[in-house]
């Protein structure tokens, strides 16, 4: 029952979710490839808490307040292990980027968001590292090296996201080659 439930949850996301494209950034080349899976690190995995437009909700670490318009709102602080919702927007482009980050508030109905967990706080530049559960891409034996060698161009990942913020990787594209396992 447990296994069927797990499969059902993933299949629901794949069939009813929205497909988005995320850009990856290079990870430590020392150990990019562990066994039969490729480690993925996204642009959205590191969130700069300083870089948000006015009139949006903010999460700040180590600051108490932000000015939004004429109002002063108390900021929600964030700690390692906190669950957050990262709202994404493509802003007319192919790739989705961070638009807002929520901790206590809920995203609006038309907002696409990913559920993530804060894994690290970087005080020196006021950023946070977030894990979304889509950082591993399993490949057949030997194929990982092929993907690793082909990197150099843009590596884009197609992810399906459902209304609850859950996500499943669909495919990985390196340059003009797409890998779908």
């Amino acid at each position, binding site marked *: 029952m*447990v*296994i069927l439930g*797990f499969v059902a949850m993933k299949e629901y996301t794949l069939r009813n979710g929205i497909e988005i494209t995320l850009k990856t950034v290079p990870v430590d080349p020392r150990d990019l490839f562990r066994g039969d899976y490729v480690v993925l690190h996204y642009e959205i995995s590191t969130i700069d808490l300083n870089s948000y437009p006015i009139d949006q909700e903010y999460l700040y670490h180590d600051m108490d307040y932000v000015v939004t318009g004429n109002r002063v709102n108390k900021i929600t602080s964030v*700690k*390692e*292990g906190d669950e957050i919702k990262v709202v994404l927007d493509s802003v007319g482009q192919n790739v989705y980027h961070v638009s807002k980050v929520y901790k206590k508030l809920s995203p609006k109905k038309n907002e696409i968001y990913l559920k993530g967990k804060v*894994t690290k706080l970087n005080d020196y530049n006021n950023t946070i590292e977030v*894990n979304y559960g889509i950082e591993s891409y399993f490949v057949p*034996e030997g194929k990982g090296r092929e993907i690793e060698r082909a990197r150099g161009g843009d590596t884009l990942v197609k992810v399906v996201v459902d209304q609850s913020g859950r996500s499943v990787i669909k495919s990985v594209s390196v340059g003009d080659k797409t890998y779908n*396992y």
Partner: protein
Amino acid sequence: MIEKTQIQRWVEKGIINQEQAERIQTDIIQFKKERSSNRFITAISTIGAILLGVGVILFMASNWEKIPDFVKVIMLLGSTLGSYGIGYFLKYKQESFPKVGASLIFLSTLLFGATLFLIAQMYHSSANAHWLVLIWLVCILPVVYLFEFVPVAGLTVLLFFIWIWLYFFSRNDDFIFARYISSLPVTYLVSGLALFAIGGLHYLSQNYTRIARIYRIAGLKAGLVSLFLLSFETFSKTSKYSLENGLDANFSRTLLVGFVIFSLIAVVLSLVNTFFNPAKSDNPYIEGGVSAGLSLLALIVFFFPTSTVLYTVLFNLILLGVIIVLLYEGYHREDMRLVNLGIFWLEALIVVRYFDFFWDLLPRSLFFMVGGIVLIFASVMLEKKRRKLKKRFDANITVENNLIFNG
């Protein structure tokens, strides 16, 4: 087991006649043959089950991309349920091949884990997900309790400790892992104590005596390894730099909450075991008191670190105390396994402390010569003592047998 000399003595004393003596000896030989055969069958079928399980895992894990996903799911689920079903049928329904049936049921619990991980892999779920191990552990627990399966109980213990590692310490960032490494033995200490206490509660039911022993031994060993690590400054002393910069206190909520929960479980259940004594221990206050006390100490060490050697000294004394208790209990119950365990850890403690104290004090050559001589003498002495004890324990069993027959 009754020995030949014993049987002869009974004949001489007229307790039994020669014909009866011969029948008893034939019976014993037959019993030994059957037992050895049973053990052999169990070993072979268990090895066969493990090899089959490993083969299936490797076969599926080669990511055979030509198989559609839904077929993979059916194959995996089918092999798990099939193994379980056939095993159950052979062991409990038909009862014709109970050993093979038991091995197949064990195989099904391994296949369940493989199925879970491979399906997660199909959907590219996170490679270090601790919750996969937790689901595996929780889902095979019914097999332990419904069938009183000792091998599966052993598997649940292994999964429990793997889950602890993945839940608390699995990080992609090596720096963060290095910061948390000092809390590793304290976390395993409270986990081991909690498992020991949970094992004690299993004595409440006659059916779960063997499972209780598995959990208690595993908890005890985890506790001993953790105490041993904590006897080193590396794990029980925090650097002044970390204390001044608050690095030691910056644990994740996961680690904090989880640690407190495990500690409270260990304390509460240890106290329950102390006052209700389901294990019928002769010294429940020592067992329970030490467990509860250690759990509380672990909490203090975790939340109030120090850059002095206070905790290091304390843990060395506690480890020595636990070893003495083990040896005492081993003597008292005439249990060689406890005595051996106590002797092993005593030797380990002496060796490492010898290194700590004398490494810098003595010239190298003298250090090794003296160390070597001391170890040789200590080994000879301990071995002589151990054999004496074993003889005495075996002799006591013989005396008890004689009393039964002579009245």
